[in-house]
């Protein structure tokens, strides 16, 4: 008992103050990102009357876009998804659906619905693809530009690479078949390329939670908060971390993560970096890091931009089991990518990415669950052994959770001032409630799952892709889709 007490005492002597400083730093840095994002939103709002989107929507000079959509057992949603992408408002876009060896009727439904015919020409070899390509199907009609690549199952990254291989336009956007895309999504996300074609190499669109929204014919027509508490918390989490956090990073020109559910890239750059890494768990993060490395090493000016206007909607996991799997996978991917690119961290050659963004991700993303759980175990132990006073315990709760709650509230204020998509009073109440409840169990649980993911990566356990049952945002019975993207 004395030995335990001595050890704890030594730990507290060393960690008591740094632990508090860590939580102050993490919450303050999030607050700073939110402040940067709010400044950008204010600037953006003042310019909303002259964006030029109408002109771009009709211009034959707009850069062509290839929409690449991987599909695995999506028979219940594939037609609605493809139609909604074909109908996107843009003057020149093709759609490439890559059937990743689906075991259901995904391919046959596509062939029958769109009257596809086989294309027996040789395949282009711009990117290596592991899964054997069985057949290419194309639409014989000039009304829409649709290609379906049928290949053996080989995972999402390899499937996207197969799609990129067949992409003919200057820009490539990768979307998930189970995401809903806003009609003007391509216009909004391609705008940075039109404004700065020389320097923009990638843009990311914001992904919002579709749970609780009213959907009609594949479009979100009314935004609302979900009924389930778990989904409500994720909505608030997406707002704070993904919408505002990434907008803040984009303002610093240090955006290192573009969501796999809606990312747009210059095709020549994608081919130059060799497409996605088929072995990576965090393939979207890994790809953006590789682009940063390429551009910095070759000393070319470039920009990776985040577009904060809502463009894509995805269903967040409605159950603990699926959420746990998703968070384990995300954290595992985070670790693998940070480790792979460790040489860029604190390396001035990589500018603000190497000196600010990567250290932030190491310290405040990768280590966050470890430090949070350590605090949650050590502080009660310290109190039990009389090593710290209750005042310290209260201080710990204040700087970690109360400050964290305030940061989330600040994110809600910025959302209200900018996009205010959750318009009903009860939605506002739900958001505030979710921001509060997030600290009572959710954060701790996700910290455990994230640590498990990290541990699995360190042990080299094989990563399995799970499936989740969608609660159903389409006017159809519950269907099965892959886990949502971050």
């Amino acid at each position, binding site marked *: 008992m004395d030995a335990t007490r001595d050890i704890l005492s030594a730990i507290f002597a060393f960690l*008591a*103050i740094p632990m508090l400083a860590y939580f102050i730093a993490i919450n303050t840095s999030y607050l700073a990102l939110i402040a940067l994002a709010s400044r950008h939103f204010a600037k953006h709002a*003042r*310019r909303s*009357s*002259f964006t*030029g989107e*109408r*002109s*771009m929507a*009709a*211009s*034959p*000079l*707009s*850069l062509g876009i290839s929409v690449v959509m991987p599909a695995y057992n999506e028979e219940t949603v594939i037609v609605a998804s493809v139609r909604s992408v074909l109908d996107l408002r843009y003057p020149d876009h093709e759609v490439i659906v890559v059937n990743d060896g689906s075991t259901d009727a995904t391919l046959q439904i596509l062939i029958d619905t769109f009257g596809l015919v086989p294309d027996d*020409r*040789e*395949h*282009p*070899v*711009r990117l290596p693809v592991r899964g054997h390509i069985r057949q290419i199907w194309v*639409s*014989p*009609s*000039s009304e829409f530009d649709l290609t379906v690549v049928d290949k053996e199952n080989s995972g999402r990254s390899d499937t996207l690479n197969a799609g990129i291989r067949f992409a003919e336009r200057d820009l490539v956007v990768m979307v998930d078949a189970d995401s809903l895309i806003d009609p003007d999504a391509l216009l909004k996300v391609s705008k940075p390329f*039109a*404004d*700065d*074609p020389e320097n923009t190499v990638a843009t990311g669109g914001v992904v919002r939670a579709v749970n609780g929204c009213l959907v009609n014919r594949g479009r979100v027509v009314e935004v609302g908060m979900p009924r389930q508490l778990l989904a409500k918390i994720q909505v608030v989490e997406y707002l704070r971390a993904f919408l505002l956090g990434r907008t803040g990073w984009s303002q610093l020109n240090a955006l290192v993560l573009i969501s796999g559910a809606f990312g747009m890239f210059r095709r020549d750059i994608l081919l130059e970096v060799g497409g996605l890494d088929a072995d990576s768990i965090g393939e979207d993060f890994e790809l953006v890091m590789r682009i940063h490395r390429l551009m910095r090493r070759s000393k070319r000016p470039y920009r990776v931009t985040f577009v904060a206007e809502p463009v894509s909607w995805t269903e967040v996991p409605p159950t603990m089991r699926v959420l746990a799997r998703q968070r384990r996978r995300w954290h595992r991917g985070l670790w693998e990518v940070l480790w792979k690119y460790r040489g860029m961290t604190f390396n001035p050659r990589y500018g603000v990415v190497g000196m600010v963004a990567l250290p932030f991700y190491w310290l405040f993303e990768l280590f966050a669950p470890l430090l949070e759980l350590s605090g949650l175990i050590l502080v009660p132990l310290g109190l039990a052994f*009389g*090593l*710290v*006073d209750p*005042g*310290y315990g*209260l*201080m710990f709760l*204040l*700087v970690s959770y*109360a*400050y964290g*709650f*305030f940061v989330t*509230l*600040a994110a*809600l*204020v910025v959302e*209200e*001032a900018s996009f*205010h998509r959750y318009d009903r*009073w009860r939605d*506002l109440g739900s958001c*505030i409630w979710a921001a509060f409840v997030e600290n009572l169990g959710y954060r701790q649980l996700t910290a455990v799952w994230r640590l498990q993911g990290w541990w699995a990566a360190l042990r080299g356990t094989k990563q399995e892709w799970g499936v989740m049952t969608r609660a159903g945002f389409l006017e159809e019975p519950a269907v099965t889709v892959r886990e949502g993207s971050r």
Partner: protein
Amino acid sequence: MPTLFPSSVVFVVLIACTIACVVAIVLVTVMRLARRVRGSRLQRLTERIRPAVLQAAVAEQDALDNSLTVFRSMRGRARRNAESIATRMLYDVTGETRTNLTYVLAACGTITRAVSRTTSTVPVRRARAAEILGLIDYPDAISHLIRLAQDESDEVRAVATRALGRSGRPEAIAGLLAALPSSSGVPAVVVGSALLEAAEHSAAAIGRGFTDSDPAVRRTTAILASHVMSPGATPRLIRALATDDEPLVRIAAARSIMRLQTRDAVPALYEAASSEHSGVRIAATTALATFPPAWTHEVLTDLKHHPDVDIRRAASATPIEG
């Protein structure tokens, strides 16, 4: 037990956190409330003003002056609302309706304000002024827009360029051509789209861009040539495809030729299909594959045996159904 923080410090932090959270909750609630109130007020206002704007938009000349009286007396929110409704409508109308809506904006004082804001020190105001001046049927707007197209702010230049194109007036063309070089800082897609909007007057002038020293100008010209049916476009495009040093210009020329479907271009396209630049090869072969088979049978048969798989693939494409 060591006391790391005096209780007074903990108390102050506790109070600070509580106040911060309460303030944030109150703030978001007040913002929501204010927005709701503004929204419902705006809705009531719109219900009242929109019919008046619509009536003026479709009014006959003799009845227009009566319709405009109501706008002349408008102040504050009502005036801003009328401005907003009329401005939004202007994006979708032409002819007499556009002229009438211009009168509505003149009656609201919008045009006078926009003109005075063209010299504002705030770039966003100048850009907004340019947007309004490009929408209305107002000849004097062009001189302001031409000036704003040379503005020190990239953003203002881009909006003014777009507005010049939307005005569709012959006087705008010189300003648009001046924005074509990459050094203008206006994105090529903005200038090109503007020239297309003013195609009636820009077609003849666009051809000059083929000989410009700036590759960006030559590329935009090559893209536009097939869209505006620039006189003498075909031989110029063929020459650009065959001789231009810049691959992006040659690719643009090949794509334009594809759109024009000109038999004279087949030899140049066939030669470009063996270019050193893969993009040029693919663009040229893709163009050939869209031509009537009677023109290209021989060359495509040859290209189907090309060492580059992308060329073989492009040459084997079957024309899509119309």
